């Protein structure tokens, strides 16, 4: 009997419930890594950033070397394409051997997959590295746009909205929504946001709401059509006031985060924003942004969320996918992701829970020129309930989408 067969038997054995919980987890995990060996995992991950693609390649090398799992990235332009593919497979009765083994996901895409029952799990709490995750300090790792993840997706990076500006051109950037409004009016044509329903554009609308609403706590509950107009009145005022002073007088908007970043690089705008606090440093390191770019956040905090990986119900390599999810949570991989010259993503781990040696990996990191240190980035505001994203995008489209 080889080791793999033995582990499978162990998994099936009736004696298992008698083992203490922790011991059982170890046994189960050994079984999972045994089955995973030799599997090929197809990870559907947005392919628009070569830095991220290179990082995934590196993770794949680790996975092959340590666990015998082959990782292939399917570079996609839109996560919704992959969600739709899994949905189509389910509708066609393909319940095993699906095309997607692991998917980079959060927010609405996750909500849609969970609602449709397209996810495998819960698997997250079984991952050996899960106890290292900072559940108390970073509640977003278990609550995705107010939706409890319930172990169906595993976090791998923290994101927080940061504003970017060229310090050579601008010395004192606006630090509240009110100041931003005044700055836009005083500097016409030098600010814009991605066109809603782009997620970063909608995030900006949410941030304006946070900064102008009397009671932002209502954002944690589903948007109520009856009170929606009243709730968003301050946002509508803000948009109506600044519209003519936006880039292109508000008659065109960049398509997405990448297009917005390009406008900053081209000098078409003076203030930009991104969801990755380390983006600016990483771009400076790559020589594609001038080294005078700096980042800042708003007084009172900016919206933060987490990036996750989830496993579709019909994956043919669920064990391999869990091995990858666990590997992504290892201090070694997390520290590399946080390196400003690699990705500049913020870690999901609780540094206090790490060994001395692992903590040192993070302490050694150079933040890069533009990244705010953890004590300067300010509080991360919770993502509003997913229904707000749709409602805000629809409202914006109704008001401005026809160009009148």
């Amino acid at each position: 009997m080889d080791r793999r067969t033995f582990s499978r038997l162990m998994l099936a054995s009736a004696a298992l419930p008698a083992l203490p919980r922790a011991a059982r987890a170890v046994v189960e995990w050994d079984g999972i890594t045994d089955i995973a060996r030799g599997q090929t995992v197809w990870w559907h991950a947005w392919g628009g950033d070569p830095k991220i693609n290179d990082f995934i390649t590196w993770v794949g090398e680790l996975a092959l070397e340590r666990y015998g799992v082959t990782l292939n990235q399917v570079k996609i332009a839109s996560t919704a394409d992959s969600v739709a593919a899994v949905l189509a497979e389910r509708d066609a009765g393909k319940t095993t051997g699906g095309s997607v083994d692991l998917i980079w996901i959060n927010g609405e895409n996750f909500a849609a997959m969970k609602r449709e029952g397209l996810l495998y799990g819960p698997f997250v709490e079984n991952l050996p590295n899960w106890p290292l995750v900072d559940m108390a300090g970073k509640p977003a790792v278990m609550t995705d746009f107010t939706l409890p993840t319930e172990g169906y997706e595993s976090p791998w990076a923290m994101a927080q909205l940061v504003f970017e500006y060229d310090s050579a051109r601008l010395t004192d950037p606006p630090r509240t929504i009110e100041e931003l409004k005044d700055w836009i009016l005083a500097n016409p044509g030098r600010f814009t946001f991605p066109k809603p329903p782009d997620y970063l554009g909608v995030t900006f609308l949410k941030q304006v709401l946070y900064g102008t609403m009397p009671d932002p706590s209502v954002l944690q509950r589903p948007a109520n059509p009856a009170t929606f107009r009243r709730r968003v009145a301050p946002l509508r005022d803000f948009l109506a006031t600044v519209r003519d002073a936006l880039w292109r007088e508000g008659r065109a908007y960049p398509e997405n985060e990448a297009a917005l970043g390009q406008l900053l690089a081209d000098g078409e705008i003076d203030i930009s924003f991104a969801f990755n606090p380390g983006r600016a440093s990483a771009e400076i390191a790559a020589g594609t942004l001038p080294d005078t770019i700096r980042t800042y956040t708003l007084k009172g905090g900016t919206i933060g969320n987490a990036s996750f990986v989830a496993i579709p119900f019909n994956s043919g390599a669920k064990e391999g996918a869990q091995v990858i999810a666990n590997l992504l949570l290892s201090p070694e991989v997390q520290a590399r992701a946080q390196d400003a010259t690699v990705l500049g993503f913020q870690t999901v781990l609780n540094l206090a829970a790490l060994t001395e040696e692992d903590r040192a990996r993070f302490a050694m990191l150079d933040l890069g020129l533009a990244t705010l240190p953890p004590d300067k980035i300010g509080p991360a505001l919770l993502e509003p309930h997913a229904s707000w994203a749709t409602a805000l995008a629809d409202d914006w489209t109704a008001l401005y989408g026809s160009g009148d």
Partner: protein
Amino acid sequence: MTRLLRAVPGLTLALMAVPVAAGLAATLGPALAPGALSALLAWPGLPRAVMLSLTTGLASTTLALAITLLILATLRGTRAFAALLRLLSPLLSVPHAAAALGLAFLIAPSGWIARALSPWATGWSQAPDLLILNDPAGLSLTLGLVAKEVPFLLLMALAAWPQIAAPSRLTLAQTLGYGQTAAFAFTVLPPLYRQLRLPVYAVLAYAMTSVEMGMILGPNLPPPLSVQVAGWMTEASLAQRGTAAAGAALQLVLVLAALALWRGAEIAARHGLTGMATAGLRLPGLDAPARLLALAGGAAVTAGLIAGLAGLALWSVAGLWRFPAALPESLSLATWARAAPTLGPITGNTLGLALGSAGLALILAIACLEAEHRFRLRPSAPALWLLWLPLIVPQITFLPGLHRLALELGAGGFAATLAGHLVFVLPYVFLSLAPAWRALDPRFATLAASLGASPGRSLWAIRLPLLLRPLLTAFAVGFAVSVGQYLATLLLSGGRIATLTTEAVSLSSGGNRRLIGVYALLQMALPALVFALALLGPALLYRNRRGMAA
């Protein structure tokens, strides 16, 4: 053998009918679901989006056709024509997204033209806030489409050229005192247009349904309908798929309406032309301005495409490149080095799919046309529509149905992906080849038969060699279409077959001009090679046959 050949057109149609029906069902089914149509009608941008689709589609097709015909009428045989042809034919294979991004970088307020003139001529030290790209009237989009379609139409016209005995017609008309332009319009245009009609329809349908070009160059408040449909389709909660389907159905109706409008204009133009011809107008005064327009149009298209691509090529080796620097501040091969390791397998996949699908499509097209020739078959109107549907239904809603079909059949991997490509490649190959094939003088076959040659021998020894140029052109067009497939490849292979285009599209979603530059050049290189062979092949093989080498 004969029985088999006789069955080929029917078999080919059946082969197409299943995927087309599945695709259409996926488009129309959800469109009829309750709420889908009302959600579409509730979208405030709808009237403008519909107008934009129509105006940009019709205007760009008219302009592209006009420039193509003017070039053919006034420049053929000149050195400018030879130069234009040499420059334009490889550009045919430039993927739409790459051409659009190149043009966008050229004309944007922070683009190359503005950089070249700043700050010394314009006084701009930072990019001006001008709405040039994404202009609400869709002018940039129209120009982008024109630039992209002129090479296609020109090549299609040249493929048909040998079959219409143009030189003798022109010579005759000119000896009767007609101006160059008038001679072309009265004697060459009617038979030429008959062969160019299907490609022109394809151009019109493409211009109205293209997503990439509209996204990059088109207005965005509201965008053209095709772009909005794509946006609904990829909306994260999957809640707008019904709206997308209704939008796609509307798009289909719009394309049909535009085609009908175009058909009407064709008839009007024919009457006009006949009237002028019977009036005996010689119009020699038209030649100088026509030549000027042809030169200007041809030069603008060529320069725009080439400068745009040169800009992208420069970006692929650029370090930091800020406004208003006309050239990058530093150069680096980092982007190419980063792309290099994956290029081998990706190029292999791309080549395999393109050679396979274009080859199969060419064989099917030849078999269909030969069956048509031998058994005096005429394709029925429904058959033609079937062939046409994949081209005029927006791909983004059509493909999920194809995907579903593949899943139901349990098909996947390379074979399913190849079959998916074939659905889009075959119509182009067929419509590139059919006009030339049908226009081949039937007396060649009669003569061969009277000398005792079997139908097979007549095909292999006489007609195929005579049709070498259109055959190669059709193959090259099919090859380029296959190379350009994004969604078909992604969906049908489950993302597991990476090609130059899947790689390029996912990377361009990040807007990184450096990488887009690398992949645009690579995406262009393969089809350019095939097109070069299509042009050079006949020239080399038939260098001692006058009238066939050119």
